[in-house]
């Protein structure tokens, strides 16, 4: 029997909402992607909350909020506790993206859906894989093998291949077949005839100009504004497509010796670039090659200045400049503030490089015609003063006492469980101390935090009799040379010190830039002040597609090439989904599904299969014919049993019955024409048929372009009068096939 496969979308079907799908393979529930939108709207997570507890594993495909944003929240509040699998860049850049979002949100609202330590703890149990690593799941999912493959689009972006019993389920969303500056194209096309393919319809209606043309237009638009003394704002994501944009600008600036300043402004910009520098293995061949030859890291930026703080930007002298700032949605983050500042000046340009998420400011501005004025909320975090501050402090003191009481209880519990403060635990505690007590005074706070750490790190195990240093009774041994010394005593102590020292030393700042660290530790009591204002949009607005996704036409041809047995469409507007569905039914395969949210569809293959052993006796008589990667032969065999109760195939005891002969091979009319021409036959195409010589015609009937459907057996008609030529051409035609 085939492997049972069910797909249940939890979010992101028939619209452009974040992606989240539950794929169940023989009862093993895989949550593929766990996305959230830039609004952090909890209502779209309802379907996820209903199934979160039953999830057995989580696979992440891209390091942006649409693909992994809900992970911390789901882990903290929805009871998701399964192991998570992702590539190293998805892990790292995803973590940075979440930090950036959190910090941006925290600036403008009392954001309490998740905290930095929720992010950390969610990302802690990610198992990191490399491309084409076959990871064998153990335990409940025994027999399932997952493997990430290159998807393009974002650094580390993944097409997941899930294999059980030789049947492949492929999850490929947001792939890009085109090679870019920093990424290789997807390898999706190398998979053929998977049992199930889950893909998105997001771009099925879009077509893109060539990369060269698009890059040129982009640079022209930017240069025009800069030369006219304007400023350019590129609202970008935190750690995804930004890398490609930076490379485009870097290269152009280097080629043309431009001096206009470029700023990359996110809360984590320097970390992003530092990590990008160490991810060369994951990037395109050309980047790897240039590094091998010249040892020039492509992300050693010469023209782009990294900023993590808006005040640094404000200090820059006024004048033409480019600012790449997060978020792309303009809903929060630096890009929001900068937009509000710059929008009123007609010289300026806001250049969107990706379609804004639904119902965001960016999307509103991308509409045609763009709105003349938009209403925005300006929010700002201001320190508390006067009475508010006093009230806050009292409240805090009370809470602190309560917490301290609780903490001591918990700590006793904990120390019982974990005697040695190993790295992850210690790490979580550090941040915990730093953020949850948003206490009154920064200085006091710091002291507190560190004291907590020290106590945590060195709290004596409860199992020991009393909190005291280990003391041994000195029953020293003596011999003729004096006291016997065991050198190991000294050495091991050394090691202990070493290990205990390491985690405390370099961890707290290990994760953040100084700016974000200071921000995180900046516990001055504060509140958020909001004001509504209307912004006149006078600056020019341009949208160019730098999303790095395959366009509609390529998607269709890739689907036709991959030719899955069953196709599931997700993520894309209703029209796009419907369009691709219609197209696929006609040209890809007859089984196309586009389920609604929480609608479970069964894509179990109706495939039957059983395994047999091929006996040596049988195989010695089989003559294979080679056809490309394949070798093929006809077998007639009798079923027998081996000692281990396996079915085996033995040679027939009586002569084989005749069978209908099979012609195997794929004939392309154009190739065949060449072939005949090379044999000295006059050939030409006439009215869809191939005229060979004077009389004979050759035709292919049936829809040749359709693959996977019923008409996959080619029908070729050869017609002609009785003549020598006829037989000659038939002979050539036969030579194109293997007859079995």
């Amino acid at each position, binding site marked *: 029997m085939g492997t049972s496969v069910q797909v249940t979308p939890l979010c992101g079907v028939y619209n452009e909402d974040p992606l989240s799908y539950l794929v169940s393979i023989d009862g093993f529930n895989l949550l593929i992607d766990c996305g959230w939108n830039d609004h952090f709207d909890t209502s779209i997570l309802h379907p996820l909350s209903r199934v979160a507890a039953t999830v057995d594993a989580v696979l992440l495909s891209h390091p942006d909020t649409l693909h992994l944003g809900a992970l911390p929240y789901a882990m903290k509040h929805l009871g998701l506790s399964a192991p998570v699998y992702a590539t190293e860049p998805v892990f790292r850049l995803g973590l940075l993206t979440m930090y950036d979002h959190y910090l941006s949100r925290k600036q403008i609202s009392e954001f309490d859906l998740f905290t930095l330590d929720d992010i950390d703890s969610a990302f802690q149990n990610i198992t990191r894989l490399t491309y084409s*690593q076959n990871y064998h799941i153990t335990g409940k999912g025994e027999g399932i093998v997952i493997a990430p493959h290159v998807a393009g689009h974002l650094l580390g972006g993944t097409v997941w291949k899930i294999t059980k019993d030789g049947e492949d389920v492929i999850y490929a969303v947001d792939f890009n077949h085109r090679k870019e500056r920093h990424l290789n194209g997807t390898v999706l096309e190398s998979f053929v005839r998977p049992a199930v393919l889950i893909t998105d319809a997001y771009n099925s209606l879009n077509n893109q100009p060539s990369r060269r043309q698009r890059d040129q237009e982009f640079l022209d638009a930017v240069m025009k504004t800069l030369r006219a003394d304007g400023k350019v704002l590129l609202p970008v994501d935190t750690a995804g497509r930004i890398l490609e944009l930076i490379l485009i600008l870097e290269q152009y600036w280097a080629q043309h010796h431009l001096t206009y300043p470029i700023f990359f402004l996110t809360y984590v910009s320097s970390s992003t670039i530092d990590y990008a520098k160490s991810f*060369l293995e994951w990037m395109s061949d050309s980047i790897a090659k240039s590094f*091998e030859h010249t040892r020039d890291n492509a992300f050693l930026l010469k023209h782009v200045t990294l900023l993590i703080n808006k005040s640094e930007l404000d200090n820059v002298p006024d004048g033409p400049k480019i600012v790449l700032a997060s978020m792309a949605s303009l809903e929060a983050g630096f890009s929001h503030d900068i937009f509000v500042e710059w929008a009123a000046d007609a010289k300026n340009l806001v250049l969107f490089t990706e379609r804004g998420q639904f119902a965001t400011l960016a999307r509103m501005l991308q509409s045609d015609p763009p709105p003349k004025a938009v209403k925005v909320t300006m929010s700002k975090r201001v320190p508390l003063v006067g009475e508010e501050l006093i009230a806050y402090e009292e409240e805090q003191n009370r809470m602190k006492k309560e917490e301290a009481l609780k903490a001591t209880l918990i700590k006793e519990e904990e120390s019982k469980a974990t005697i040695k403060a190993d790295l992850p635990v210690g790490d979580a505690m550090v941040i915990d101390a730093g953020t949850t007590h948003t206490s009154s005074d920064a200085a006091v706070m710091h002291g507190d935090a560190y004291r907590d750490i020290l106590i945590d790190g060195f709290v004596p195990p409860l199992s020991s009799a009393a909190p005291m240093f280990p003391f041994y009774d000195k029953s020293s041994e003596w011999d003729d040379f004096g006291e016997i010394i065991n050198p190991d005593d000294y*050495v091991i102590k050394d090691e202990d010190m070493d290990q205990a020292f390491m985690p405390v030393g370099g961890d707290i700042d290990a994760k953040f830039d100084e700016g974000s660290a200071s921000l995180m530790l900046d516990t001055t009591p504060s509140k958020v002040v909001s004001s509504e204002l209307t912004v006149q949009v006078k600056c020019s607005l341009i949208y160019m597609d730098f999303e790095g996704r395959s366009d509609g036409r390529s998607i269709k041809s890739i689907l036709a090439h991959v030719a899955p047995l069953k196709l599931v469409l997700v993520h894309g507007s209703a029209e796009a989904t419907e369009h691709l569905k219609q197209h696929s039914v006609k040209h890809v395969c007859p089984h196309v599904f586009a389920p609604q949210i929480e609608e479970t569809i069964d894509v179990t293959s109706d495939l*039957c299969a059983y395994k047999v052993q091929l006996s040596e006796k049988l195989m010695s008589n089989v003559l*294979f014919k080679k056809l490309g*990667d394949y070798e093929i032969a006809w077998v007639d065999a009798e079923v027998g049993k081996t000692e281990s109760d396996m079915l085996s195939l033995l040679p027939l005891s009586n002569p084989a*019955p005749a069978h209908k*002969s099979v012609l*195997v091979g794929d004939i392309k009319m154009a190739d065949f024409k060449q072939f005949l021409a090379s044999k000295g036959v006059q050939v030409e195409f006439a009215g869809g048929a191939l005229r060979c010589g004077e009389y004979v015609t050759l035709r292919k009937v049936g829809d040749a372009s359709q693959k996977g459907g019923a008409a996959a057996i080619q029908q070729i008609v050869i017609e002609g009068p009785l003549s020598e030529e006829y037989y000659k051409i038939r002979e050539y035609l036969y030579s194109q096939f293997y007859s079995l």
Partner: protein
Amino acid sequence: MASTGQQTTSLKRRDSLVTREGDQLIITPLGAGNEVGRSCVYMSYKGKTVLFDCGIHPAYSGMAALPYFDEIDPSTIDVLLVTHFHLDHAASLPYFLEKTTFKGRVFMTHATKAIYKLLLSDYVKVSKVSVEDMLFDEQDILRSMDKIEVIDFHQTLEVNGIRFWCYTAGHVLGAAMFMVDIAGVRVLYTGDYSREEDRHLRAAELPQFSPDICIIESTYGVQLHQPRLIREKRFTDVIHSTVAQGGRVLIPAFALGRAQELLLILDEYWSNHPELHNIPIYYASPLAKRCMAVYQTYINAMNERIRNQFANSNPFDFKHISPLKSIDNFGDVGPSVVMASPGGLQSGLSRQLFDKWCSDKRNACVIPGYVVEGTLAKTIINEPKEVTLMNGLTAPLNMQVHYISFSAHADYAQTSTFLKELMPPNILLVHGEANEMGRLKQKLISLFADRNTKIITPKNCQSVEMYFNSEKMAKTIGKLAEKTPEVGENVSGLLVKKGFSYQILAPDDLHVFSQLSTANVTQRITIPYSGAFGVIKHRLKQIYESVGSSTDEESGVPTLRVHDRVTVKQESENHISLHWTADPISDMVSDSIVALVLNASREMPKVVVESEPVVDEAEEEKKAGKIIHALLVSIFGDVKFGENGKLVISVDGKVAQLDKQSGEVDSANEGLRERVKTAFRRIQDAVRPIPLSAS
């Protein structure tokens, strides 16, 4: 069981099985067999060939340093896997790629590839051999770079049916252990590995799957390392006390790999000891400086510790270590620590400094790693009274010599636990001096005495042959598999082989499960014929048993269908057409129809009207009986008609009775009965051929 000394190569009783040639697995060390250096191991199974590593022997030069490449045909090699960048594992690669017929694919990890280029360019520059002796030049290295492909740890690749992936090996940055899977037989090649995590590298992983054969290094044989911390302490103590007494410390080290580990140790020690800050540490290797970019980039190939530090600042930005270009730039006033290459003190800067410092007893030389036999470093470990300087003079050896190994090869404890957990049924030892290897072998034999583990130590060019009884499994899928057959039933279908996996499927399913497709060729041929259609029908009926006649529904012309294969249609007054789907039998039938039609048109004038021949069963039977009789007579001679239709055959006084209807034979003589039976069956086949409809 424990076959010592000379190898008995056959590991399986050859005669006991019908082994086909393809099941033989051959492993031949072309280098590093009972020696250290020029690692190169050849492996071949089922027509697939893999070469592991491609090194040179550091103690020789020119052609003599190469592995024994002439033992193999380089053009047959499918895949060449290089474990790490050390010269004894990678340095003959440019030669092999550019100067031999090799045309397979080469793989190594990203970091290995980046350092490989730097290292070999340096090697070409410093090796002082005559031009004829040069194995390759800078250009060859650059060209080889284009051919080398990269593989990431754990990434599974498949080339030509050979699947392989690699695990972290410890040892140096980018070092890998390769697991190769050919048709289900797995071979693990460890290269140089270390199971101990150090300052910047992860420990070698334990593979998830147990291999069938493990080719493992045996550099340190049965020796045991001191724990890392003790070694580090000894190292720093020696250096500290030497410089404190005003002496100079020379650390001859290979420029890359372990040197970085030592620098990390020194840098950290200096940071923790402010009193040493006025004592300079020099690192005399321009190469290492260039490689720093690589070390600073491939952080992800290192351990957690470094990765955490990386977020803070790059740990390979040393604060207390300054580079030293050459001895001319070196002031040499007062105490200092100098790390210089080469590690063996053969020549170069480390030798120059050694010559200068060796006679002062305040100075120290710390040898931090494995030293190859035949080098000066090996000599001074035994602390001779005198040494020969480069200029040929002898000088007293007064400086202290310390040997503290940081070479990150596995010791006996690591090797034995690694093998115990891995449990490979076959172990091949390479990369070790004959004596060390022999001791290790003895120890492993006693360790695995209760298991059926073979431990083999082949010499260079000595082939090890093994036999693997590979069971070929096929998966029957699609329509053919709708029902699992019972024992004794027949299965027929297409057997499709891709790589080493087999599928059996129905022809209609071929396009569903593979990229192959099937085709139907419909043929239409028109023949000029102006006679009556009835004639053809009549003639066909004379030849073929099944001729159906009808009229075409569209055009209303009469058609004939011969054996449900070929349709004959009267297109017009002057033409008839044949119409069939190509396959050998139909083609044959159509050919005969064509011949018949052509004959008919030639014989047109004399239209013969004949009554439908009455097929008389009895007549037929009689005719057949006659023929059978005649044929039997021609075989056996004396054949008589017996009672109730039986034939009595007598040969040399033995008598057999044959029943023509059932084919049963009665005879007292076994031999005769069989002979008659066979003869009769053949005669039957000839007289009554298989009716066409059966096909």
